């Protein structure tokens, strides 16, 4: 058996009295597309927020490619190749596409102590390329993200993660509030990840979406994993019955 790209061991998390994760152990193999499902408040976001560095577990361990990983900030997670796409939080609407693609990781012409002059040409060229690579076609990298549709925004977020060579992409309800057509587009992006060898964890309340693009299903309820099976060996009915 190969080393899992991500492994959690007995993760516990409390939010002042709420026991949100009650010992979550999970293995994600390289190249898999894992669908994470569960009712509201099951602890899905809590789990992935720990992996993406927004929160830290109260006990338990996270291992990345077999090595213990102490993920304390989003930067730490990104350095380990973990990129996260949220329902809303990943873009600044009033900034341009190229600026959004490089937020926090801007290419600089020169710098002192980490502060320096932006290489705007490079930002523009590379964002155009990154967006084209996920088969998204936008007029200009200088358009404001706020002018894009919800599906296009998620496309740009995925393009950004791909550009920075993410190994694991976590998508927390990326299709919420999107139209049917836009949702199909995002599902298409997720399917494209597997083709490019990127491991993904996809969270959604819609079983059809999860079964459409994932090869493994993990179900959570009340802070625990209650099902973990290859998608081919389970069904929407079995999973729904557990939640």
């Amino acid at each position, binding site marked *: 058996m190969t080393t899992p790209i991500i492994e959690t061991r007995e993760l516990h998390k409390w939010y002042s009295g709420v026991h949100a994760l009650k010992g979550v152990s999970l293995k994600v193999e390289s190249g898999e597309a894992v669908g994470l499902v569960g009712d509201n408040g099951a602890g899905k976001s809590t789990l992935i927020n720990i992996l993406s560095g927004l929160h830290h577990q109260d006990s338990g361990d996270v291992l990345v490619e077999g090595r213990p990983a102490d993920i304390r*900030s989003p930067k730490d997670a990104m350095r380990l190749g973990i990129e*996260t796409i949220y329902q809303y*939080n*990943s873009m*600044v609407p*009033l900034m341009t596409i190229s600026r959004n693609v490089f937020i*926090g990781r801007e290419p600089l012409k020169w710098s002192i102590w980490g502060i320096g002059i*932006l290489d705007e040409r490079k930002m523009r060229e590379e964002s155009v390329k990154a967006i084209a690579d996920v088969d998204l076609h936008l007029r200009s990298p200088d358009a404001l993200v706020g002018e894009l549709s919800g599906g296009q925004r998620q496309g740009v977020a995925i393009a950004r993660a791909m550009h920075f060579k993410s190994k694991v992409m976590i998508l927390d309800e990326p299709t919420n509030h999107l139209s049917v057509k836009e949702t199909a587009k995002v599902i298409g992006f997720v399917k494209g990840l597997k083709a490019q060898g990127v491991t993904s964890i996809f969270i959604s309340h819609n079983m059809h979406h999860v079964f459409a693009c994932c090869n493994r299903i993990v179900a959570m309820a009340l802070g625990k994993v209650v099902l973990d099976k290859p998608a081919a060996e389970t069904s929407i009915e079995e999973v729904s019955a557990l939640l």
Partner: protein
Amino acid sequence: MRRLVKLAMQKPELASAMLLLLLVVLFQFRSDGVFLSVNNVRGFLGLLPETALVAVGVTLLMISGEFDLSVGSVFALMPMTMAVLVVAGWPFWVAVMLGLMLCALIGFLNGWLTIRFDIPSFITTLGMLFMARSLTVVISGGFPPRIKPGEVPSWIFVGFVDEGGLIRASVLWFIGIAIGMSLLLSRTNFGNWVRATGGFLPAAAAMGIPTGKVKIACFMICSVLAGFAGMIQSLRLNSFLPSLGEGMELQAVAAAVIGGTSLYGGVGSIIGGLIGAILIRVIDNGMVMSQVDGNWFKFAIGALTIFAVVGNAWLRRRGRAMKVETDK
């Protein structure tokens, strides 16, 4: 019309710039040419860098999503600290550096308290407004310190640089700092973080931007600029008064807003804040020169501020409506 709306949306400072031009022409006409006379322009250019520097700092801070009501008090505290130190025998440059460092410390406290305890900066800096003003009075000891003209090299900051005695060094300092701040905001990664932090905090944080540090840095820049501006004014007047800069904080916010800066952060430009500050000075000075009752000044600034906010909100709504049209 659509193109006009779109342009005005992308460059909210454009409308203010046009209004500015209009007012200059109007005041020149109404004052029978006194408004643009050498004497009046000299006075105008003396005061402008001082208020505009404060506006520049406040604009930067507002773009990062925070407020600073303590700038007026810091405006007085810095020169008072410097003067007291000079009178006590400290070298001028050491006194200036210590004064500016005190400003940086106040900015740091404003930011740190706001971030650490997650309270509105409106409240933190309101507290600081009183504290810094009180400190200013206390260290002055009740008697404004006196520095003899020529005792300190104040010409570096406020000496006239041209033969005709029209432009002071402060104008050059101000232009240099304004250009520097404008480049910092628009051309550097730090500027990108400031906009992202003020534009949408959760996104900035999720992308690994140290949003707390970015805000604290903006608070510090804002305070240092306010202190520096206060020092220039004190050196120009060669008097160090504990009451300096009272009411300045709200004028600076008004300048930023008139120049198109959003109260919610993320939107605005240094040049906008600058135009706002010039507009306020032009209105103040132009009204006096055209012999309008000076008590109308605050009324005019207030009305203009409300007008600017309403206008910008309207533009943004129009802009959104337009996007729907282009989608089809």
